[in-house]
């Protein structure tokens, strides 16, 4: 629909600012590349400026490339090869996979079939890229509850319900870092973060299992001194940490 020589804008190398350009821990004002040009105020950017421009652009391009690449991983795999499970397979129904492996890898034994029968969650369970609001409450896995005086409060989110009873202002954060299919969670004691400061914990944390989700009941006693208290949620079977509980008494 365009005339033969319709002028258009060039394609930009990127459309977003780089918000983490400076690696943390480096000196404050120095980029990883060479020092700033001396001519900033009075000269325009032009071909003379180009070496610095392209070094930055190359690395920015690298950032974009890897981000896109990771996003597309699954699709790229499919377009060129047999359907791949990609980074985070939904394992059980992949009937075609062992056949391919058999062909490609040669001599197979019953051990592979045995592996198929394991119904385990994907390794390297993926934390989604930052989305939604940041915070200890990220990725929609937990909910912040700041309770007003004299009331219990309930907050619910997929897979997790948090109920707080407190007679003074508290701030509660419960974070689940691994979703389990059949959760059976247990909470450790809540302790202040300063090491060696002793157990807190007249704060009680009870975890019970509802159908497909867990419920965490937190009761904060009246006489507790202000401060932060935190603890872990463990998977009762494997004792592996699955999340954190954080209570701040104001």
């Amino acid at each position: 629909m365009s005339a033969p020589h319709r002028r258009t804008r060039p394609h930009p190398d990127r459309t977003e600012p780089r918000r983490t350009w400076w690696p943390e821990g480096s000196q404050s004002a120095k980029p990883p590349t060479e020092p700033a040009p001396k001519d900033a105020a009075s000269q325009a950017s032009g071909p003379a400026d180009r070496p610095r421009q392209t070094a930055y652009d190359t690395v920015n391009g690298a950032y974009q490339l890897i981000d896109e690449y990771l996003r597309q991983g699954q699709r790229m795999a499919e377009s060129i090869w047999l359907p791949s499970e990609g980074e985070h397979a939904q394992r059980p129904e992949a009937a075609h996979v062992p056949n391919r492996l058999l062909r490609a890898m040669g001599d197979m034994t019953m051990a592979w079939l045995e592996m198929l029968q394991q119904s385990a969650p994907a390794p390297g369970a993926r934390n989604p890229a930052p989305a939604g609001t940041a915070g200890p409450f990220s990725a929609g896995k937990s909910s912040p509850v700041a309770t007003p005086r004299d009331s219990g409060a309930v907050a619910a989110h997929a897979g997790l319900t948090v109920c707080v009873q407190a007679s003074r202002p508290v701030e509660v954060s419960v974070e689940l870092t691994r979703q389990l299919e059949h959760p059976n969670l247990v909470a450790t004691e809540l302790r202040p973060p300063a090491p060696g400061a002793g157990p807190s914990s007249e704060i009680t944390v009870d975890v019970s299992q509802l159908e497909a989700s867990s419920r965490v009941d937190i009761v904060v006693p009246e006489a507790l001194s202000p401060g932060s208290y935190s603890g872990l949620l463990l998977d009762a079977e494997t004792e592996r940490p699955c999340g954190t509980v954080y209570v701040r008494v104001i």
Partner: protein
Amino acid sequence: MTGRSELVRQVLDEYGALSQRLLASYLRQAMARDDVYQLAADYPLRSGRALRASLCIATARAFGGSVQDAAASAVSLELLHSAFLVHDDIEDESDERRGKPTLHRLVGVPAALNAGDALIALSLRPLIGNRLTLGPQLAWSILEEAERMVRESVEGQAMELRWRQTTDADVSERDYLLMILKKTCWYTTIYPSRVGAMIGSRGELDLDLFSRFGFFLGAAFQIQDDLLNLTGDHERYGKELGGDLLEGKRTLILIHTLRNAAPPERARALRFLALPRAEKPQTELEWLMSTIERLGSIDHARRVAHALAGAAAHELSICLRTAPDGRDKAFIEALPYWVLERA
């Protein structure tokens, strides 16, 4: 600075020696079966840096795994790396590898090709063995990672070969980075750190963070390699100077030069690159190398390598945040700096 390089050298030596022992014992069993494995064993047993095996083992240990847990995967990777080297040397028509003649120069191309294939076959067995040491679930995942890694490497190599065949193809920096990601980074840095993290944490960690780290580190590593090819110290480097140009290999440096050269220079360079290796005159090679220097392509590539190493260091600070301090963690953290310092 030197403290870091020292640490890296020490760890590479230690894990390198360890992998060598494992490789040797593994190969001995194979060599008893057929002579082809004798040939195949040549490259793995020449001394090399064992960077990939070391990264795999160190990452595993940093997250609480043991050397035994990671050993098989590390060995498998070194065998695969040797397979790629054998084939690369044939494709590049190189004469030297690690101070000795290349395999195909020693025994001819067909036998060398077959030895490379044998190495690929050899590299799979240890992964199957993981089933017993790591359990079927983790072994399965590592096997999937290996499949992905091999596939990416092959595709990356294919991209590069296409460029060499059509020498006037307009290759951009982004194309180059994608090719490096697939061809080099996957098996040099991404796979070892992903698998190491997987082993050490028993599958708990988000592996995409390691992909990012691995990409930046591997890219910095490759660009530094390309820089050394043109400017490095021949004896320590282990390959011929200017060899990449003779092969017509598209490096970041060459891409920059072709983009910034005046049209007649560009045409002259392309003509040079199109010639078969044996017919490339030395004088033209020298002209091209000085043009590269003059157009600032060396400086540009240095800056980019530096920045990518910085990006790798940044990603590491995120990846490794749950790993307790220790020698292995320090080794990995030192890698972005070492990549730039090595000659």
